């Protein structure tokens, strides 16, 4: 038996993809992905219309989808994160149907429960055999973990593996196995692995980032969670990664070993694993090529599915085992609600990813952010787009003070005892406005361009088209 289809077109024909169906993609190749564009180009040529694209994330490289939308090939989008020209076009109202924004845990929940039905899943497979045994660690486009593709492979009606590295049967290791895959297609290249690099992987030189990170590490210590077996996740952004750096220094100084690090994994976490500062890495997605190398070679660097990572609908997901998560924000309001989806002008430039999942799961959720980001105060009365609800956020750490969610009275006392600069979040907001002046509010039309679904499936906010954004 052999599942290799002669061409991508042949595989799509075999899948019986029709107008109005839903296709899915995973985003481990991030901004280096070729598969999304390639598939939609083929679908367009085949004359199929009104397709819903459920992609775990879309990046600047996916700009050509704008044309697919204009041509009527794509009618709807369902994503956890979206940035670049396509995201801006969506903000400007290119789609009639609002985009559904989910979290990395909410997407597998929706897929498994059937509220997000996938007709055909396209798996960008860095290596596959002719039967569809796939891994992400071999081949010219190795991207490491394939975690987010696993729910798609399990639940889609049809599964097409697109690979540029066809290996003799049986392939190993196996991340997605032959029992789930219908067809395998060989193409020239599925992507450029250097495009997977996310955020900054070097620790910042910015002194303000280090001040914030220093406070954040102090917060973790004062919370009492900095002890043997600590588990944590940090983002790849400047202050977030710097916090990991300061936390690491504290762990070394105190001789503490962590149980696991999780998330989008970077070389920084790989170093911690190799230096024996954490026992394991739980990896749903690699953020750089050091991580790809490590997940291939180190048995303590573990690949897990999107469901394992963050799905609230299963019998236990890993975010619930997190002690500490350190996250960024583009805006936070005085109720501690966080926006990581729209920018200060209301234009889409991101999404929850695992933000709201880890915030809900971790014992301690810390938001690290510059109080002023190029003059704009980070603290507002109300965020433009609510992505992570305030009752799951414990502490906001800025360079000018630390605000504790008033619901966390004990934590507030501990931080005060530790002589951290604890302030009311309203005071922080006032401090920012005193320095920068009060920003003029952005106005919106009543056209809904996106719906933000919380991880449990409830609608947490809507995204409106800003006024005067006709480009």
């Amino acid at each position, binding site marked *: 038996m052999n599942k290799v289809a002669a061409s991508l077109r042949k595989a799509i024909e075999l899948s019986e993809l029709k107008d109005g169906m839903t296709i899915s993609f995973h985003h481990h190749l991030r901004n280096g992905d070729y598969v999304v564009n390639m598939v939609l180009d083929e679908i367009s040529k085949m004359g199929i219309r009104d397709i819903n694209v459920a992609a775990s994330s879309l990046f600047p490289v996916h700009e050509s989808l704008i044309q697919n939308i204009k041509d009527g090939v794509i009618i709807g989008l369902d994503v956890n994160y979206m940035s670049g020209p396509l995201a801006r076009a969506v903000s400007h109202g290119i789609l009639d149907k609002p985009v559904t924004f989910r979290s990395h845990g909410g997407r597998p929940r929706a897929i498994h429960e059937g509220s997000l039905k996938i007709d055909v899943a396209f798996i960008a497979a860095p290596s596959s055999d002719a039967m569809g045994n796939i891994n992400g660690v071999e081949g010219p486009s190795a991207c490491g973990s394939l975690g987010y593709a696993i729910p798609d492979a399990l639940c889609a009606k049809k599964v097409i593996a697109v690979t540029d590295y066809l290996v003799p049967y049986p392939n190993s290791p196996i991340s997605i196995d032959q029992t789930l895959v219908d067809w395998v297609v060989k193409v020239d290249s599925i992507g450029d692995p250097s495009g997977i690099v996310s955020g900054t992987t070097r620790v910042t030189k910015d*002194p303000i980032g*280090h001040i914030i990170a220093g406070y954040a590490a102090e917060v973790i210590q004062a919370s009492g969670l900095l002890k043997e077996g600590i588990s944590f996740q940090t983002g790849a952004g400047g202050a977030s990664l710097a916090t990991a750096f300061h936390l690491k220094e504290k762990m070394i100084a105190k001789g503490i070993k962590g149980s696991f690090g999780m998330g989008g994994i970077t070389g920084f976490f790989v170093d911690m694993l190799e230096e024996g500062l954490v026992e394991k890495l739980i990896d749903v997605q690699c953020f750089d090529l050091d991580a790809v190398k490590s997940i291939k070679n180190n048995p303590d660097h573990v690949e897990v599915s999107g469901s394992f990572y963050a799905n609230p609908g299963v019998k236990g997901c890993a975010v619930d085992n997190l002690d500490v998560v350190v996250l960024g924000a583009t805006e936070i309001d005085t109720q501690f609600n966080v926006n990581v989806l729209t920018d200060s002008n209301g234009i889409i430039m991101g999404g929850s990813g695992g933000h709201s999942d880890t915030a809900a799961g971790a014992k301690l959720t810390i938001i690290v952010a510059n109080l002023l980001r190029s003059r704009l105060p980070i603290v507002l009365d109300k965020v433009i787009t609510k992505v992570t609800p305030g009752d799951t956020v414990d502490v906001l750490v800025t360079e*000018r003070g630390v605000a504790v969610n008033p619901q966390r009275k004990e934590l507030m006392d501990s931080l005060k005892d530790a002589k951290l600069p604890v302030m009311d979040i309203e005071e922080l907001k006032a401090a920012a406005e005193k*320095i920068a002046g009060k920003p003029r509010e952005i106005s919106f039309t009543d056209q809904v361009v996106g719906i933000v679904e919380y991880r449990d499936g409830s609608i947490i906010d809507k995204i409106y088209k800003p006024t005067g954004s006709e480009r």
Partner: protein
Amino acid sequence: MPTTMIFVPGNNPAMVQNAGILGADSIIFDLEDAVSPDEKDAARILVRNALRSVDYGSCERTVRINSVDHPKWKEDIAEIAKGNPDSIVLPKAQRMETVEMVQGALEEAEDGQRSIGIIPLIETAEGVERVFEILCCSPRIKTVIFGAEDYTADIGAKRTKEGSEILYARCRILNAAVAAGVEAIDTPFTDVNDMEGLKEDVKVAKSLGFRGKALISPRHCKIAMEIFAPSGEEIEYALKVIKTINQAEKEGKGVVALDGKMIDAPIVARARKVLKLAGMEGGNHE
């Protein structure tokens, strides 16, 4: 009485606006080495505007002007005085005459409301030899900083992390400062990433008697603060000393001993100093 004084490049708005939160007691806005020759005008205008409008909290605000051999040093003073800083830092201070000249320029520029201090930066062989007379020549001088980079260049020595080549200058400046009733601040440690080297360097400075350190990296602030802060043992002993003499005063005793050692005036003075440094002013805390 600063423990840490941080240099901030005077033409960098991001650093200038955030200088108050870097963790140092004192800010030195730098118009000299950190500013390129064709941006000197922009830097002094930027720093003057910032001094007027940015809230630097409890930080002492000082400005390092260009040395008096720079053709526009007087413009620095004229411009900066309008921002009313606490002090100016005078680089390459090496004679009384230099200080007096700068003092004259300050008197001209000041609005008469408040006198701007002068912090000589001793960084030449001649400056080290004349340090006592320099420190004594103006009541505006309350603090002195040692600058080892220019000094070692001047004497033709190689700058090392161990710093044996600057031991003489450090001791000479410190001794002169104590004799003149001026606080002495040690030279910056210039390797931004070598935290262990920094710790050793700060420990040496403290052991020689320096009361603080100039810094070039915000990441050095915390370490320097921690080392200069009195240790738990020092605080405990100081509290005991104060308690004992308070008790003695109440009981009308003239002479008292603690742990078999007589407590005399210098011991009491040192105890008060330790408590002040520890933020326990007055020493009345139990």
